[in-house]
């Protein structure tokens, strides 16, 4: 252990968690905060402490080699920024949650910056299951290992981002005209604007022109157009657009 004469120990109450955390301040390190690594009881400066074992090298702060044991991120996890969380995504972590200190292990999907909730994935025989631990209940987070390429691939394909523009120009043009004709047959004023459709100057439909691709500030028009798109038949007949006479629609 350390000579206690050189260590100041503060017990701080963090108001939003009601927990007590001990921070050890060492005057020798020019006021930098240090946190224990329990396995080797070696002191680390904060930047080195927050790195995972694979990333650590020589600590530039004071020229000492850093430990290569696993780290225990205590309340430091919550106070470290989103950049650290982003670096830990896709790694296997162990989260201790709740007063009963239940442990959950899984591959880190994401950490919500708003609520500090941690989303973990675990793969079973029949598919994947996701566990989200709410931020207020997270006690400890420990990074265990990096993912192997197979797991990384599975993680990436779990919640894929939507395709950006999707289909080739001809297909897109065909779909766009189909949607435009359908809307015009339903007496909705629509005009083409490049790759998008503009409805009554207030609603925009991007490729690939599905109900979810509509965006507008006007809730009522959005709702009406989305409903129309949902009931659009697959083959929009090329019938005449009603000029102004009502035909029962």
């Amino acid at each position, binding site marked *: 252990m350390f000579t206690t004469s050189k260590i100041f120990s503060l017990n701080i109450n963090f108001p939003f968690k009601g927990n007590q955390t001990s921070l050890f301040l060492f005057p020798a390190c020019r006021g930098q905060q240090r946190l224990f690594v329990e396995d080797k009881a070696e002191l680390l400066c904060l930047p080195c402490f927050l790195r995972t074992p694979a990333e650590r090298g020589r600590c530039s702060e004071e020229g000492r080699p850093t430990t290569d044991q696993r780290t225990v991120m205590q309340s430091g996890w919550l106070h470290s*920024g989103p950049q650290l969380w982003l670096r830990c*995504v896709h790694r296997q972590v162990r989260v201790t*949650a709740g007063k009963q200190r239940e442990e959950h292990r899984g591959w880190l999907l994401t950490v919500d910056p708003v609520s500090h909730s941690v989303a973990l994935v675990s793969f079973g025989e029949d598919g994947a299951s996701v566990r989200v631990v709410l931020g207020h209940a997270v006690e400890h987070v420990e990074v265990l290992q990096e993912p192997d390429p197979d797991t990384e691939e599975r993680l990436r394909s779990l919640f894929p981002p939507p395709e950006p523009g999707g289909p080739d120009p001809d297909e897109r043009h065909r779909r766009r005209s189909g949607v435009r004709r359908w809307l015009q047959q339903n007496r909705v004023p629509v005009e083409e604007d490049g790759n998008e459709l503009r409805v009554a100057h207030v609603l925009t439909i991007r490729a690939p022109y599905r109900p979810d691709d509509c965006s507008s500030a006007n809730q009522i028009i959005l709702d009406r157009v989305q409903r129309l798109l949902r009931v659009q038949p697959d083959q929009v007949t090329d019938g005449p657009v009603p000029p102004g006479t009502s035909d029962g629609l």
Partner: protein
Amino acid sequence: MATPVPVLRLPKGPDPNSRGFDPNSPRFIALCRTSIPTSAAAESDPQQLQEEQHARSVLRERFLRCLLAMSNKKVRFHMHEKVNVEATFGASDIDVLNFQVSDLHTPIGVQKEALIRSQDVISFTFDV
């Protein structure tokens, strides 16, 4: 235990304008902070601020996609005192303070629609 029960009318909470539920009261701000602010280091350096903002938006987008994938699926909520309930997930609010669920299976019956506070929940799971 599949008989639907009528909606229970619980007693009204504290007056929203008095202490406790007042959004400007120190207690509310302390307990229900809506979002973590930018770190002190990033505030001074615009480059780092940009990186931090990018990280925040990527993480938040992944979380929102996770929530989207969860809608209309059966989720199991693990709450305090080892209470586990199953429900069909509806939506969450922007600060992840409340969850709207349908068909909540409770020991006294099935609640057709319910609002669960996030402070009561420790974790929840669902199958993709």
